[in-house]
């Protein structure tokens, strides 16, 4: 479903995204914010990463504090106007033991992974 160029660029972005996380992360387990949306053309879940939108939550850029979250969300707006994504919003995330971002709500966990009873579908299947 995803074109090769897209997957490549998201991989690049994800590496930068990880860097961004490590700079933003405070103590382990501290609640952080990330921005998510759905990609217009295919509806898939995306996150604002270090350089544009990425498909994996692990590659999302995370920030702490309300203001930083609002700034992050504002960054997404031009891509709404440019018809790249639909309906961006802020979500709560926390880094796990390994420092990988995890969504805190059940809903966002399911969005980040895929249907819970179908491990063969969604992002969890690609991991």
């Amino acid at each position, binding site marked *: 479903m995803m074109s090769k160029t897209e997957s490549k660029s998201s991989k690049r972005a994800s590496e930068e995204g990880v860097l961004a996380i490590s700079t933003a992360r405070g103590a382990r387990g501290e609640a952080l914010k990330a921005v998510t949306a759905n990609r*217009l053309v295919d509806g898939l879940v995306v996150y604002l990463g270090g350089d544009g939108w990425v498909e994996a939550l692990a590659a999302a850029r995370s920030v702490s504090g309300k203001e930083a979250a609002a700034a992050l969300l504002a960054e997404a707006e031009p891509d709404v106007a440019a018809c790249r994504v639909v309906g961006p919003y802020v979500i709560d995330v926390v880094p796990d033991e390994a420092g990988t971002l995890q969504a805190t709500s059940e809903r966002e966990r399911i969005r980040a992974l895929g249907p819970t009873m179908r491990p063969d579908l969604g992002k969890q299947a690609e991991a």
Partner: protein
Amino acid sequence: MYRYDEFDQTFVAQRVAQFRDQVARRLVGELTEDEFRPLRLMNGLYLQLHAYMLRVAVPYGTLSSRQMRKLAHIARRYDKGYGHFTTRQNIQYNWPALKDVPDILMELAEVEMHALQTSGNCIRNVTADQYSGAAADEIEDPRICAEVIRQWSSLHPEFSFLPRKFKVAVTGAPHDRAAVAVHDIGIRIVRGDDGEVGYAVLAGGGQGRTPMIGKTVRAFLPKPYLLSYLEAILRVYNEFGRRDNMFKARIKILVHEVGIDEFRRRVEEEWEHIRGTAVEVPEEEVRRIASYFAPPTFARLPAVSEGFERQQRTDAQFALWARASLHPHKQPGYAIVNISLKPIGGVPGDATAEQMDIIADLAERYAFDEVRVTHEQNLTLPHVRQDDLYALWQELDAAGLATANINTVTDIIACPGLDYCNLANARAIPIAQKISERFGDIEQAHDIGELKIKISGCINACGHHHVGHIGILGVDKKGVEFYQLTLGGDATETAALGELVGPAFGYDDVVDAVEKLVRIYLGLRQENERFLDTYRRVGLQPFKEKLYAAH
């Protein structure tokens, strides 16, 4: 079944072209999402948790083999190899890309299908009894009426921006398998005192946040006035339905707030102006439509097939399946066959592309080329010779489609819930799967008898929990999934809304609670009582006490 003529074909083709243009305008930014949303919704395209979801209309649940094969093809080519049959007799695809949807619609149009009016605040796809044209107790095939309504409501210029969505269901038999009492309009085909066939019209039923049983607006409507009467109801609703609060916008609230007598007065007053005018469908057109629903050429057979009787005696597995899956046919020597889409531990209503192809094949060979989608998320082959049942069963079994659990505790309705749906509070499918596994012993399920469990992931009640014998509603308590249980709901001609038993259960406890309810029933039941009968006899209290006693 109904076949498109060139007018119908032109109409859907033009509709596809229109949507292709709308998608193109969206992709280049001529339309914002706010502007595009209502347009895509008018074509059944939602944006859900993981991706877009396309809901394809299966008018009154009737499909030909060719259409079923196309649905399989779409699942394979544009989706992830499966589809989900819904409580509105439709099919949903969970992963289509926006850019592909015009092509999907074009492929659907090739087999006389569309996604029109599967969402939005318009008159939705009309549903009907899945046993239409086959049931022994039928007065008239409800699909004729449903098709007349489908055409009349297609892109209705006056009623495409109603206060809220509007669902119509039709039953042609006294035993109501279409749940007409929980629809915005429910139509029962009835026989008047002098034997004339007409319609009893109910309005104001519905589930969701404020569940209500529909009330009779007119006990007998002569057939020629069907459309003027519907137009009168819709006009009164369009003018007076509430638009200030989305949760109070359904027609049931209007009927409830002004009272059925005042509502009826307004409808009848409006009707006086328009009855017998051009809105009515000409008799010749009704005859044209009806001719498509003429019964297939049945063979003349003895009422009971000896082979079928013998096979049941010699093969206990087959006998069990037959007991669960068959329904009496009006034609001697035939049977109505239900195909369970509820394998033990499976996702209710899901079918793989391969299964769809197999079912299409079986319908072609054994069932005059027809398949029905039921509102309980199963499929039906409406006309099968009893002589063929054994062979059919073997083929179904080989495809994992012969679970002998229709109408039993594991024949569960579940909406997509939090695993797919943007509006959900809690998951529904995994709960259904766990209950199914808990009662996985088919013999035991048969001993429990008829028991309808219905699960919704939020108050919108797509999983019909209000009318489940046991209803399960997912709620969100501070970000944690909880489940409320209701008892005593009923979707049939004895329609009733379930009553809340007590405090909600957590995700890990709800299956135990359901099992406990079943055990309480088994302890209380008298001979031949179904769960619902026992509940009606003893009431909520004994269930409530025993359910929470050990906690």
